């Protein structure tokens, strides 16, 4: 009953999504107020039905309904409850439903927070989102239905892939999809602007908080994925330039360019057609990511089980949605016109340099990811493009961006002066050079790459301090320091925090790459090994049983200068249902280092191969990402976006615009 209810709910959601699209777009084109006003309730209805469908699928999982084929292949009665819920998005069909759920959640949010928009704009935005929803709902109903039944029902399910039975599975996909899907709002605003022919600073101000919010979610989603890979895969790596990782990174890079470009468009009304194009491209890359994971075109550890029909459908969806909006761009963008002018050296030009760098970075990642396919398709042979390529190419691209991060916020709009900037930043530059020269010695030895990384990170941090100092100094004179600090806008604090997060991230990457150490040893009970100043003593392995696995659990006592730091319990598990072995590393997390231990194979009755890593500052990588996301959140909640402050002004503006 429940699965059928879910399927019905999806069909109803599809109808409502189509209605939403029609009412919004046609209503705005024809100026039909009634139609436009109707898009909001219709959109909310769509959300309600998608939510019902999702609830139905979740219920099937939680109640172990193995007559549903999807549940049977992704769950098991011995699976703990929270993994039964996470299993909902453990396979292709359910993860598509999660995608559509996120889209409808964002749609619902737009219906709530769009009262200050002119009705026409709001209707168009909702209309475009409805069209995208409809496309995905069609895809689910026709090729990826999670509610299909399986008769005769198996006595038990095939279990969720053991690699996915992890807290990471509970958090990573929802966050990631919120980000991916959130860029559809920026996209919808862009298309709405192209349709209406009106693209101005107000448009940028409306779409900015949504774009920033999506960017925050994507940042967190990617960071979670990276952290999960780090502790789950047992190798201590945290980024592999896997095609699917790249598929999430490209929208992030483009999204970063977009939030900076929107700043220019909002403040100065400049480069509007470029911003619109970026918004379309960011969402296009999200859709491309969906295609790459599910079509079988690239091999990836993340790829879902693939089916050519699905690949063709998504490609068609991609072609229609993006092709359509790019055609609209060709037709409408020339009419948008130029915004305010600015000098070759100005804050605008620096923000646009940021755009060039991030766009080039996204383009490079795309190039590397699709190049093997391009060569194969043209019959020119088969190559692999992996981390050596991306690492070589990416770091030099990012270095100028890091430099700009220090200078840009201090540059004046319209026209900046180089000597002026240089003098304001001289202390920051000195601090950066000092850090680059001295800090590596604190870690043990000096290295050029480490010095470079620390130089850039210290530069970003020190110039951030300089920026805050100037803002506070230039605030109302005579007021107390506390009042002055409070007078600095949230958007500025958000920017400072996000940029500081980048510096923290760079420190983490630089120090881990420069100073990590590991030892691969054969240990009998009682043996010790020394890594990174810590002594690790192996106390043997004993058998344990988990809810759906059996394991050999090792015991490692870690001491430093004689006193016990921690005890670690790495495991080698075998999940009963799929008979799949898995290594669970044991990690002692610390502010300045991680101690990472994993079990290899047993080489005798008592001796095991043990791999011990010392990873200095590795958690700064994800800490930095978290700070970036918090900064973005602060910026998105800036006073100028919040409704209460704006309502009287916006209503007057909307009324004027409608005339």
């Amino acid at each position, binding site marked *: 009953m429940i699965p059928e209810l879910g399927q019905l709910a999806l069909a109803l959601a599809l109808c409502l999504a189509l209605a939403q699209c029609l009412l919004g777009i046609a209503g705005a084109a024809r100026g039909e107020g009634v139609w436009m006003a109707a898009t909001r309730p219709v959109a909310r209805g769509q959300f309600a039905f998608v939510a019902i469908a999702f609830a139905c699928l979740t219920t099937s999982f939680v109640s172990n309904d193995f007559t549903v084929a999807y549940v049977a292949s992704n769950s098991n009665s011995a699976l703990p409850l929270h993994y039964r819920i996470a299993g909902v998005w453990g396979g292709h069909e359910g993860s598509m439903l999660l995608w559509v759920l996120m889209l409808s959640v964002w749609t619902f949010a737009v219906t709530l927070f769009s009262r200050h928009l002119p009705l026409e704009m709001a209707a168009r935005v909702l209309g475009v989102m409805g069209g995208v929803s409809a496309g995905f709902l069609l895809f689910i109903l026709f090729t990826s239905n999670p509610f299909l039944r399986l008769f005769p029902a198996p006595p038990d399910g095939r279990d969720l892939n053991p690699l996915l039975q992890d807290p990471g599975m509970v958090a990573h996909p929802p966050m990631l999809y919120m980000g991916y899907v959130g860029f559809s709002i920026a996209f919808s605003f862009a298309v709405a602007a192209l349709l209406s022919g009106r693209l101005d600073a107000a448009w940028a101000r409306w779409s900015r908080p949504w774009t920033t919010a999506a960017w925050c979610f994507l940042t967190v989603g990617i960071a979670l994925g990276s952290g999960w890979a780090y502790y789950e895969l047992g190798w201590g790596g945290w980024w592999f330039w896997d095609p699917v990782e790249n598929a999430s990174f490209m929208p992030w890079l483009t999204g970063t360019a977009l939030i900076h470009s929107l700043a220019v468009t909002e403040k100065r009304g400049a480069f509007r057609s470029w911003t619109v194009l970026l918004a379309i491209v960011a969402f296009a890359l999200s859709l491309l990511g969906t295609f790459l994971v599910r079509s079988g075109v*690239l091999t990836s550890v993340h790829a879902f089980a693939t089916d050519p029909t699905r690949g063709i459908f998504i*490609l068609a969806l991609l072609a229609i949605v993006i092709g359509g909006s790019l055609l609209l761009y060709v037709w409408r963008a020339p009419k948008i016109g130029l915004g305010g002018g600015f000098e070759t050296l100005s804050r605008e030009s620096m923000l646009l340099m940021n755009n060039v760098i991030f766009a080039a970075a996204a383009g490079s990642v795309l190039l590397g990811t699709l190049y093997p396919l391009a060569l194969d398709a043209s019959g020119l042979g088969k190559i692999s493009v992996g981390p050596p390529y991306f690492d070589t190419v990416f770091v030099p691209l990012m270095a100028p961006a890091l430099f700009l991060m220090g200078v840009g916020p201090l540059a004046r709009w319209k026209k900046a002066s180089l000597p002026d900037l240089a003098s304001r930043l001289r202390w920051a530059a000195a601090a950066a050079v000092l850090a680059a020269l001295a800090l590596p010695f604190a870690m043990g030895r000096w290295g050029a790459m480490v010095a470079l990384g620390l130089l850039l990170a210290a530069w970003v941090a020190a110039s951030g301090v300089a920026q805050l100092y100037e803002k506070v100094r230039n605030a109302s004179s005579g007021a107390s320091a506390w009042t002055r600090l409070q007078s600095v806008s949230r958007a500025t604090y958000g920017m400072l925090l996000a940029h500081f997060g980048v510096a923290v991230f760079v420190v983490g990457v630089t120090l881990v790459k420069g100073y990590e150490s590991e030892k691969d040893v054969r240990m009998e009970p009682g043996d010790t090994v020394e890594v990174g100043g810590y002594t690790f003593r192996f106390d043997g392995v004993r058998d344990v049983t988990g809810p759906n696995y059996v394991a050999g659990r090792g015991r490692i006592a870690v001491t430093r200068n004689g006193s016990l730091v921690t005890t670690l319990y790495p495991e080698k598990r075998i999940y009963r249902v799929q008979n799949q072995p898995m290594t669970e590393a044991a990690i002692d997390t610390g502010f300045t280092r991680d101690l990472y231990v994993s079990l290899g194979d047993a080489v005798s009755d008592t001796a095991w191969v043990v791999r011990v890593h010392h990873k200095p500052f590795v958690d700064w990588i994800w800490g930095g990402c978290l700070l970036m996301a918090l900064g973005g959140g602060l910026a998105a909640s800036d006073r100028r976006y919040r409704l209460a402050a704006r309502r009287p002004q916006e209503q007057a503006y909307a009324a004027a615009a409608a005339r």
Partner: protein
Amino acid sequence: MTRFAIPIAIFIALVVLLGVGLKLDPREVPSPLIGKPAPHFELPRLHESDKTFSERDMLGKVWVLNVWASWCVSCREEHPVLLDLAKSGVPIYGLNYKDKREDGLAWLKGMGDPYRISIFDFDGRVGIDYGVYGVPETYVIDKGGVIRYKRIGPLTPAFVKETLLPLVKELDRA
């Protein structure tokens, strides 16, 4: 104003690329040995372990080398096809890859033996020389000892009819 058309032009090229990509198999590793002489080996035979066999023994003849193992599931799929192929007169030689001798012999006994001779590659060294990465794989080698074709994955009747047999006939004529 044509610069506004650049994005859609790039996009169309991308979609075409992805469309073509849907037909390709990203996992397939083409062999760099095509058109090159078959790597040399001298291995003991599976049935008569005191005798050896080398690719040099086959110079002047067109032959098919099939890599198989008793632990390989897909090999079962292609076995009937091989038996038919052998009956039609094509010389097929087997490379028993990383297997146990008893297992290999038992497998052939139970499933039928399409191979004129099977050679025993215990540690897979010869397999590596031939670029074997997934069993079953099949090579077509011409009279001059040059590898002319490599098939990755099990043989199917359609493949044999449309590609393998015509190629063997053509090489025979040369």
